[in-house]
């Protein structure tokens, strides 16, 4: 679905005369393959290059060197940009700054409108997408009246209406309250399981990555650690080096001296009961 081949990306800052002032390498010879239907979580401290990586997947940024292939399309080909963006949607961090229209319905229709979809088809898809995220009843309301979590759902519906194969979430929960966070992460998992949509979730929150198929930890534009959640979170010391933490349950289980790598509350309760018996 998504393939990075030796991708390097440099932010070049120039002064007023156009001379190169400084070069920051955000992605450094990175190779990566994400399969169709996979749920991949990407972790990393600020400046590790994870947002840059996300912006390469729907051709908002293009590699300085190397190649990014999305659903078989090369992102450096300008004529394929719309095909790529339609297949790989993106949910951004700030819910307010990605809603364009004045009603929920019209905002969900923004993508299909840009694709030049016929009206009947569009209305059908928009209705479906709003029902899918549970916002059909609010379709005529102003997005300004919705909660943060609901606004993010509007953004998700706007992507769903384009029938994407892949959704990239770029820290979608950073500005939400706990209820909103849970709502968005659950929606992401549901879309992955029921609709088979490839999900790439970029986050700072360890708990949100526990249900992923694979975790990628980034550092200085490279992949520092990769594997299933269990593999990654059993390397607690390396994670701390990279400025990450363990999920609360894993950390707690280690401190009370439980064996194995515990990820969820359920696992913790299970292991704890066994231990005290």
């Amino acid at each position, binding site marked *: 679905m998504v393939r990075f081949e030796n991708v390097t990306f440099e932010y070049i800052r120039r002064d007023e005369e156009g001379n190169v002032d400084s070069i920051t390498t955000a992605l450094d010879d990175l190779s990566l393959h994400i399969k169709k239907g996979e749920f991949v979580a990407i972790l990393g401290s600020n400046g590790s290059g994870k947002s840059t990586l996300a912006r390469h997947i*729907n051709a*908002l940024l293009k590699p300085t060197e190397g190649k990014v292939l999305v659903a078989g399309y090369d992102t450096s080909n300008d004529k394929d940009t*719309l095909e790529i*963006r*339609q297949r790989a*949607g*993106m949910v*951004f961090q*700030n819910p*307010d*700054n*990605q*809603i*364009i*229209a*004045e*009603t929920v*319905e*019209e905002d969900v*229709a*923004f*993508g*299909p*409108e*840009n*694709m*030049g*979809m*016929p*009206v009947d088809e*569009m*209305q059908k898809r*928009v209705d479906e997408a709003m029902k899918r995220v549970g916002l059909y009843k609010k379709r005529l309301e102003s*997005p*300004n009246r919705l909660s943060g979590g609901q606004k993010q759902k509007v*953004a998700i519906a*706007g*992507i769903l209406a*384009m029938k994407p194969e892949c959704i990239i979430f770029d820290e979608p929960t950073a500005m939400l309250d706990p209820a909103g966070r849970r709502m968005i992460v659950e929606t992401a998992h549901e879309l992955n399981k029921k609709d088979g949509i490839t999900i790439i979730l970029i986050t700072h929150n360890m708990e949100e990555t526990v249900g992923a198929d694979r975790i990628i930890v980034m550092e200085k534009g490279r992949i520092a650690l990769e594997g299933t959640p269990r593999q990654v979170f059993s390397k607690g010391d390396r994670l701390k080096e990279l400025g990450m933490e363990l999920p609360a349950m894993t950390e707690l289980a280690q401190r009370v001296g439980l064996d194995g790598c515990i990820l969820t509350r359920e696992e913790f309760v299970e292991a704890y009961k066994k231990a005290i018996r």
Partner: protein
Amino acid sequence: MIRDITIGQYYPSESVIHRLDARVKFIATIAYVIAIFLFDTFWGFLPAAVWLLTIIIVSGIPFRFILKGLKAVLFLLLFLVIFNALMTPGEVLVQWWIFKITDKGLTNAGFMALRLSMLVIGSGMMTYTTTPSQLTSGMESLFKPLGIFKVPVHEVAMMMSIALRFIPILLEETDKIMKAQQARGADFESGNIFRRAKALIPVLVPLFVSAFRRAGELAEAMEARCYHGGKGRTKLHPLKFAARDYISLALIIGFVVGMGFVP
């Protein structure tokens, strides 16, 4: 204070006027504005006044709401009336010190007041009965022919609708910044008008910075959703003429032609 001004607000209702195509309403408003500026006799105003009154009654918008719209221009209205009454030469009716009120001045002032109030109420009627998104897409479609002269019609319409969507967000942000500065001792409430205006500068700077940041992020989000200008774009709610729109258009044409016969 800002909430008291009803001009430009939408008043939701289900009337025929509300359901009319935005383009028809726009054309009607232009014809009406021309009508009230073309004449300065009583008989000239009568048809426009009857038209306005009919629209107000059919739209079901309360008179109180409409009169509130006039409040915004009350000062301008008074100013115009007083100047017209005092400055027009003619037969003097009342004289006091250097001020004289003439017969012509009085009629001029009356017409000016009538014209301005009818202008404000009439154009207000368009915004009361049309949602902002209908209004912008109506204007986009009406001005589309200007595209041949390289006027960026779609872009301007898109800018208008985005601006409308961000007004409440930026107001909220202004409030947040002011509160944050008040918490650190800023004073927005005392002093004369100049001092207060000056106190607002430190609010405007971060507001502008954040507005630019938002604009950047929004542009990115729009691009990520396949936005590439107006070319090949369709609409969820395309504007379509119904029978009522054709009838209204015929009435407008009749009205414009009828204006030619007014003495």
